[in-house]
């Protein structure tokens, strides 16, 4: 235990006081003595001087013992009791104080514990009631979250400063860096800036357009842009503003769609046009010149005529060749229009059957439908077309049920609508193709031919007379199998924290970071595992993990976790602590590849770690090789714990966690430790606030003052 200034003061006082009393007594007695007696006394003193010095020293020790005993039993015990009481009050109501020092404190501790018990119960009641209220809000939020995760489109909501308030899983996929290369941007995350994900100018331009149209009196202006993200992928963003209570623009909703394929095909169509125009001009010019000569000069000599005729023949051959090449090359581009989507034939048939049965009350059946057959189809229009022909079969031919079958045929799928009974003549069917489709009372301006043309498809009628079977055969272009979107892995006991509406009111701080309140800062809490304890002796990082705290909330889903190849053998000793096998690291990136990604993850946040000096030392040694610098402020939970509990000695992560009621799971993995550190940090924030430490600057100052700050690695 550290001995404070007051301790030494008391000791000095007692010691000097005793000396003063003894000296005073001796002086008084000495004044009473006669000359000879004084001399005799002086001699006695001289003879006994060593004993006297010994007595003086002994007196010092005696007083040291007494004052120390007293200070431990009273003032220090009182202070310790107060600190432990504060733990109950600010961090962990389940904590019970223990008495130290004088027996009187047993009584005090007992009373405090009784009070803590009552307080805990009262808090519990309050908690129950507010939990009920919260559950309701939570349920609504959950419904929103569920709705969002169901959407096929990516959704991203940000406030007016571009801070992300909400996003869904699809948006995360769309904006995730593709390929194995280090990401170019910080990942999508709550509270992060939308401008690191989408081009700032494009977003600003969209906002300008929205504002301008609002000014023109439009009530719900929507604007669009196409943004290119990583790996040449193209996203179409639809931007819709939303408003605060004063009808000012409060933020924007981005609906995101991957249009890489669509725009790619659009580009191919343009390329086809250009290639046709360029490739056909010259041969057409040659044919035309030769032909015009032949027509204009019928009297030309035979040799000349033969020459021109040859030119016409040759150039026509070139023209044919170019046309065929172009068509073959761009076959894909001609196949599909923007409204087509890939769909399995089985799904298409089941939608069509439901529609025919409900709209026409005509029984349907599926015969042979291959499971792995996919088509590129405008399913709405096509199902309408199927229903239309089925309706005419029922009305004009008295057909009472229809069947579906399908098979692949080259680049097409053959889908047959089959029935038994009357045969539909091909000229009748040709008429059906050209008439507007009518289903019951609904008529569309579209014809079956329009629908088929949109697909690059065909349809005709066929029959097998012996079996009285007839069918309409529809050709649809074969599509690509679309993998069913994998549902997000369920997180045990929690749901993804993809939104944070509390970021709404947040004012962009331009002021000094140090003046910012701790509660409103965004933190990256991280931990590393290393090969050993000596960074300067060549020990290396083998794992980095981090989680984020935004607006006082720990976002468990937005984590960073990366194993690192240390390019040196693992010490079996350390392997026992972190449990990472050397083989697991062989294929991992090295630290100079990982640090830049981690740096981006930490952008605009305050770093937090337990015993941060240790981790930072490792990181700093690699900064130069990685070409980045971590310049953000760093908070250390070890130092902060020491700052709020100066009389407690044990500030290991487990001990703090236990003291503050944080459940410890997965220790000694980087992510597990980062999570525990983050929970501990959140509770320490409350204790710091108790002590009036509310800004980043104050927290850094308190850290500096604590004893452990003097530790150096």
């Amino acid at each position, binding site marked *: 235990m550290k001995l404070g200034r007051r301790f030494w003061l008391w000791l000095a006082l007692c010691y000097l006081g005793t000396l003063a009393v003894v000296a005073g007594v001796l002086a008084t007695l000495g004044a009473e003595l006669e000359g000879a007696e004084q001399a005799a006394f002086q001699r006695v003193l001289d003879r006994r001087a060593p004993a006297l010095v010994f007595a003086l020293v002994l007196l010092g020790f005696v007083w040291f013992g007494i004052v120390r005993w007293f200070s431990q039993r009273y003032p220090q015990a009182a202070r310790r009791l107060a600190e432990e009481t504060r733990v109950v009050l600010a961090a962990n109501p389940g904590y019970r104080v223990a008495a130290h020092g004088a027996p009187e404190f047993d009584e005090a501790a007992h009373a405090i514990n009784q009070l803590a018990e009552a307080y805990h119960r009262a808090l519990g009641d309050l908690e129950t009631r507010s939990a009920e209220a919260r559950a309701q809000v939570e349920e609504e939020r959950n419904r929103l979250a569920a709705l969002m995760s169901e959407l096929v489109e990516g959704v991203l909501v940000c406030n007016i400063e571009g801070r992300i308030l909400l996003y869904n899983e699809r948006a995360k996929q769309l904006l995730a860096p593709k390929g194995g290369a280090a990401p170019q941007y910080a990942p999508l995350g709550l509270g992060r800036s939308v401008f690191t994900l989408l081009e700032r100018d494009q977003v600003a331009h969209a906002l300008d357009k929205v504002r301008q149209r609002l000014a023109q009196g439009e009530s719900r202006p929507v604007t669009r842009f196409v943004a290119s993200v990583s790996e040449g992928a193209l996203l179409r963003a639809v931007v819709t503003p939303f408003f605060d209570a004063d009808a000012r623009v409060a933020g924007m909703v981005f609906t995101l769609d991957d249009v890489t394929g669509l725009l790619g095909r659009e580009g191919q169509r343009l390329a086809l046009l250009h290639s046709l125009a360029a490739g056909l001009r010259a041969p057409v010019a040659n044919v035309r010149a030769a032909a015009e000569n032949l027509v204009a000069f019928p009297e030309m000599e035979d040799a000349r005529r033969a020459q021109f005729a040859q030119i016409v023949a040759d150039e026509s051959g070139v*023209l044919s060749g170019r046309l065929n090449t172009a068509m073959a090359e761009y076959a894909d581009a001609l196949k599909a229009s923007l409204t087509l989507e890939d769909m399995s034939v089985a799904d298409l048939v089941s939608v069509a059957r439901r529609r025919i049965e409900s709209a026409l009350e005509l029984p349907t059946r599926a015969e042979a439908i291959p499971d792995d057959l996919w088509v590129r189809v405008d399913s709405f229009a096509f199902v309408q077309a199927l229903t239309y022909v089925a309706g005419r079969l029922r009305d004009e031919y008295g057909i009472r049920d229809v069947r579906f079958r399908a098979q692949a045929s080259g680049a097409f799928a053959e889908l047959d609508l089959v029935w038994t009974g009357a045969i539909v003549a091909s000229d009748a069917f040709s008429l059906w193709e050209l008439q507007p489709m009518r289903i019951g009372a609904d008529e569309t301006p579209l014809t079956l031919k329009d629908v088929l043309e949109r697909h*690059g498809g065909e349809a005709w009628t066929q029959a097998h007379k012996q079996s009285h079977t007839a069918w309409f055969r529809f*050709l649809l272009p074969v599509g690509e199998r679309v993998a069913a979107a994998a549902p997000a892995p369920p997180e045990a006991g929690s749901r993804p924290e993809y939104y944070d509406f509390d970021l709404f009111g947040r004012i962009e701080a331009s002021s000094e970071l140090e003046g910012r309140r701790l509660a409103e800062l965004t933190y990256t809490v991280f931990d590393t595992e290393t090969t050993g304890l000596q960074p300067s002796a060549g020990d290396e990082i083998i794992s980095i993990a981090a989680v984020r705290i935004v607006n006082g909330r720990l976002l468990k889903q937005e984590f960073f976790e990366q194993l690192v190849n240390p390019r040196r053998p693992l010490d079996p000793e350390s392997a026992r602590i972190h449990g990472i096998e050397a083989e697991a690291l062989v294929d991992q990136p090295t630290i100079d590849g990982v640090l830049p990604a981690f740096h981006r993850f930490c952008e605009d946040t305050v770093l937090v770690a337990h015993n941060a000096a240790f981790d930072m030392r490792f990181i700093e040694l690699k900064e130069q090789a990685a070409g980045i610098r971590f310049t953000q402020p760093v908070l250390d939970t070890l130092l902060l714990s020491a700052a709020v509990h100066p009389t407690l000695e044990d500030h290991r992560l487990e001990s703090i966690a236990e003291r503050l009621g944080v459940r410890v799971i997965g220790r000694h993995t980087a992510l597990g430790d980062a999570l525990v550190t983050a929970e501990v940090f959140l509770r320490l924030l409350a204790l710091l606030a108790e002590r009036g430490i509310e800004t980043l600057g104050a927290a850094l100052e308190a850290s500096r003052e604590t004893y452990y700050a003097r530790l150096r690695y």
Partner: protein
Amino acid sequence: METAKRKVLIVDDEPNIVTALEFLLERRGYAVRVATNGEEALALVESYRPDVMLLDVMMPKRSGYEVCQKVRERPDMQHVKVVMLSAKGREAEVNKGLSLGADLYITKPFSTQELVERIDALLGAAAKPGGA
């Protein structure tokens, strides 16, 4: 003994291609008749009884598909070879033409020489009427 001339029916509404094909096929030793729409073609099939039809797909009054299907519906016309000629060369149309009974589907533009050779081959492969 010299066999009767093979009979070709050209069905197309574009006079320019008809002129060229007619000229070429006659030179090659075929008897040639021309129809310029679907109705006329069906009437001529009945009276003229061609060995082979060159059938354009896009025509006024019944498309080439329809004519082909009508011809194939007749049991007594099964031996007639049908060659479809079309400016629409997409795979779906080729598939439709062959499904409806065409023997060949040729996309415009084509080489006239090659067309004639393929007609020769088609008729050579067929059982010769009254032959053997």
